[in-house]
């Protein structure tokens, strides 16, 4: 079985995200990290390998991003991936969800995986379910927010929490599965693994190497446009009063709730 783990480099959650007052764009300085949700994907792959129910020949970390994204790949490899693939190309800059999903699908196509695992969302809140976009391009079944994966001769059985409760779904491989953070507790890499990460094979690919059509990626190929960025509307501060007569206070609260159709 060949497992590809899609990973993304995102700004560290602890870095205060702000708009640069000078350029009015997102200030992208500050530490970047492997998207915490993707570490759950890698851990899921490792648990499949170590679980003994399937022979996993390779776990490959795959990312699309600028030069610095190699750090995310190093981390992924330190966590157990055997090798990594870095799709990087100036032409990809400015890609929106549609363009990114297409590009990722193309690079995954070149690896022919049996299972694609990724985190269900990225920490920078950009997108939920890029996995579903990728799956449609790859013509594979897909499921997101998965919190349990079991192997069963050539297919997997997944559990996830949906609108009405927990669903159990069986899925034929190959498939694209986006995992939630409740699925497992990612391991810490050993110091040895961290130091050995840079020596694991890393393939760098450009759009031409995997058959990505230039007009479907980048800013030009994107199907959405950010028109404006504004601070959120100022929230009016509410009313604060002291409870002098509890009966009256409660009446007031009930009226307020009623007004807002909350009862």
């Amino acid at each position, binding site marked *: 079985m060949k497992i590809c783990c899609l990973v993304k480099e995102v700004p560290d959650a602890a870095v205060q995200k702000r708009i640069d007052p000078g350029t009015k764009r997102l200030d992208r300085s500050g530490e970047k990290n492997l998207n915490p949700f993707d570490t759950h994907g890698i851990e899921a792959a490792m648990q499949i390998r170590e679980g003994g129910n399937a022979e996993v020949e390779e776990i490959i970390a795959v990312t699309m991003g600028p030069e610095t994204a190699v750090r995310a790949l190093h981390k992924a490899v330190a966590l157990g991936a055997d090798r990594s693939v870095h799709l990087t190309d100036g032409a990809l800059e400015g890609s929106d969800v549609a363009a990114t999903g297409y590009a990722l699908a193309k690079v995954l196509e070149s690896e022919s995986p049996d299972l694609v695992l990724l985190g269900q969302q990225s920490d920078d809140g950009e997108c939920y379910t890029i996995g579903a976009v990728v799956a449609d391009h790859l013509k594979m079944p*897909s499921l997101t927010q998965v919190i349990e994966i079991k192997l069963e001769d050539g297919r997997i059985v997944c559990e996830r929490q949906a609108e009405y409760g927990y669903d159990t*779904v069986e*899925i034929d491989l190959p*498939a694209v599965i986006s995992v939630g953070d409740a699925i497992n507790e990612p391991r810490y890499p050993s110091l040895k693994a961290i130091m050995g990460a840079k020596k694991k094979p890393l393939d760098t690919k450009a759009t031409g190497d995997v058959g990505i059509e230039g007009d479907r990626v980048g800013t030009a190929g994107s199907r*959405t446009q950010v*028109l404006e960025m504004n601070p959120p509307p100022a929230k009016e501060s509410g009313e604060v009063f002291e409870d002098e007569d509890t009966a009256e206070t409660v009446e007031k609260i*009930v009226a307020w709730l009623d007004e807002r159709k909350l009862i």
Partner: protein
Amino acid sequence: MGGILVYALHDGEGKFNNNSLGAISEAAKLAGELGGEAGVVVVGDVSDEAAASLGNYGAAKVHRAKSVEEGLAQPIIDVMAKVIADDGYSYALFGGGLLGFEIGAGLTARLNAGVTMEVTAVKVADGKLIAERPVLQDSAIVDVGYVGEPGIIIGRLNAFDHKETGGSAEVIDVEVELSEWSTKARMRQRGEQRGADVNIEDADILIGGGRGLGEKDNFKLAEDLADALGGAVAATRAVVDAGWYPYAAQIGQTGKTVAPKLYLAAGISGAIQHKVGMQNSESILAVNKDPNAPIFEFCDLGVVGDLHKILPKLTEAIKAKKGG
């Protein structure tokens, strides 16, 4: 303009999910402004009356794919892709919720369409729709426009309110050839309830309990109130640390982030580590005996008082109001 197509999720017993109804109302409103109409896709065993009743929320047409089962996204992608192509809808709009994400994302690939997620509002400009969504932990709002058609809009949970406008929709049955891979995922069990796991992220109403409750047993006050209001109970890091409530209910910087219709903060100071997890709640009601508690600076209604007195009386009053 070709109209706005919405997907409506139902529970298998004819009741439609509120977020879906909200999306229909929103679509009807927007389509009206654009000179088009709102259509809805439903799948599975939906009766004629149930389908037609969606007209009450503003749907003009309901496209029903009876042979497709509810619950998995990919077959529904096939349905919506066909309806969009056949009927020329210009936008697809989804209410908050899991299936909306999966279907919307799949349509993005299928139709090479632009998609915006976590949308909190939609506006009309020059005959086109612009989606507004928060970014950077809600510290900014971006306006996103679409290049070409269709455009896909996936709303944030509870972003769109449903409104009954009266009316009945035309029900049209559609047959769809499913993609090969849409048959590769099969539902074994749907909607299993698990008592112990409380999903606070989807609750419409949350009662948050903090240190002001005083002791572990006092969480009962929060639970009783939650029951009365039909909501769930959440907790701050401090009380989870102290073992008063489970970590699954923790809200904040190192816990969960929620945006319910109502967040009632009982005995919570409102320190920023907690605030970032609930500040986007539609309505925030705070009860705290400390008039200087930071929560009073960002709540919609604040009561300075003893929650041990207020909460029980409030629970009673709500029960009375609901029962009567």
